[in-house]
């Protein structure tokens, strides 16, 4: 469960979020809005990458201001650009890297890495240099590196922006099958069409909060 209570975020002179309040118990939640509307800041609030200037963000019962490290272990985050997330030279090493601080036995690490790569179609690339993968494969690798930690919530910031149609569909299929709660920031309306709930943001505020058809209608009106 995610709860935001009168959250304000100020970056320099600019107020990026202006009193956002929401309770998000649904399994699949989408966030849409114009560029600069505060979507990415909202996403970063959910695993403590950004802390509120005022108000509180509670994720899985913990206040992000007090327990950011604990929340980051329970909330996975996928960024738009996979190149910025890949740390190790090869595919399997990058996925295993996520588990390093967990001090798991080598066999357990190997099992989890093999399992997640197999599940998302990267098993054949385990020893390949990560930088030689296609854009879609890199995003899948970044996703594997997050999912290997078995997060309880997954936050994704425009995960399909750099992907072609085939890989966008693949990410959509993956999202549909994930058992955990997911919050997806996106401009890809098709990706969010079957979500449980969509938030529409504009100038740092939630201006619509509804199931996809109504929320997308509001967003189109806002953009016209």
């Amino acid at each position, binding site marked *: 469960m995610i709860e935001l209570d009168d959250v304000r975020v100020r970056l320099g002179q600019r107020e990026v979020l202006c009193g956002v309040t929401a309770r998000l118990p649904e399994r699949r939640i989408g966030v849409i809005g114009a560029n600069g509307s505060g979507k990415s800041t909202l996403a970063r609030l959910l695993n403590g990458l950004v802390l509120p200037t005022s108000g509180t963000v509670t994720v899985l019962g913990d206040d992000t201001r007090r327990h950011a490290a604990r929340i*980051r272990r329970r909330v996975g985050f996928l960024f738009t*650009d996979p190149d910025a*997330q890949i*740390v190790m030279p*090869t595919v399997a090493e990058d996925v295993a890297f996520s588990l390093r*601080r967990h001090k798991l036995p080598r066999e357990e690490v190997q099992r989890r890495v093999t399992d997640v790569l197999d599940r998302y179609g990267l098993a054949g690339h385990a020893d390949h*240099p990560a930088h030689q993968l296609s854009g879609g494969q890199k995003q899948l690798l970044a996703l594997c590196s997050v999912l290997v930690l078995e997060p309880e919530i997954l936050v994704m910031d425009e995960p399909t922006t750099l992907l072609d149609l085939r890989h966008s569909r693949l990410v959509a299929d993956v999202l549909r099958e994930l058992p955990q709660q997911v919050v997806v920031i996106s401009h890809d309306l098709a990706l969010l069409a079957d979500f449980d709930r969509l938030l529409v943001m504009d100038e740092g505020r939630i201006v619509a909060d509804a199931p996809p058809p109504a929320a997308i209608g509001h967003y189109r009106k806002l953009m016209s």
Partner: protein
Amino acid sequence: MNGLTGAYVPGGSPLHRLPAGAKLAGLAACCTVLVLLRAPVSMAVAALVVGVLFAVSGVGVAAAWAQVRPVRWFAVALFAMQVVFADLPSAITSVSRVVLAVALAGLVTLTTRTEAMMAFLERCLSPARWVGLDPFRLSLLLSLTIRSVPVMADLATRVREAQRARGVEWSVRAFAVPLVVSALRHADALGEALSARGLDD
């Protein structure tokens, strides 16, 4: 790019199975021996040994060549200088020493996973804890450095393409400014991604 990034080549050779520490110690010993060798004949024997090691590792000719290719022009220049200022045997010995040392270092990276290298470095750096440094972070630096090479090369290619498209391909400023800005943006994004993966705990 393999040569630059030292990308691991999967395999099951005895060299692949050796622990990272043993390989690094072996590399240090071999480089010391190379420094001590003086005669071109002994260099020929050393070259044969290095060749056999590459053959045993099974990494392939392309990967082997990628290790020494970046130093080829340096080797040519060094050889020419040695011939002019010393003599032919010295030129052969000096150039062989550099090329064989680079090839051996490349062989270690080609047969060792970065995570094995990081784990070894972490163990070696564990006394750094006494002065408040985190060995994990220090070994992470190594990995990020290796990973940053292809990323920077990619950024440079993109900036070059943008320059060509705008017809300012000879402007150093038009190359350097966007490259530095992109590199700083990448560093910011990487830092955020590391935090998101719980690595700042």
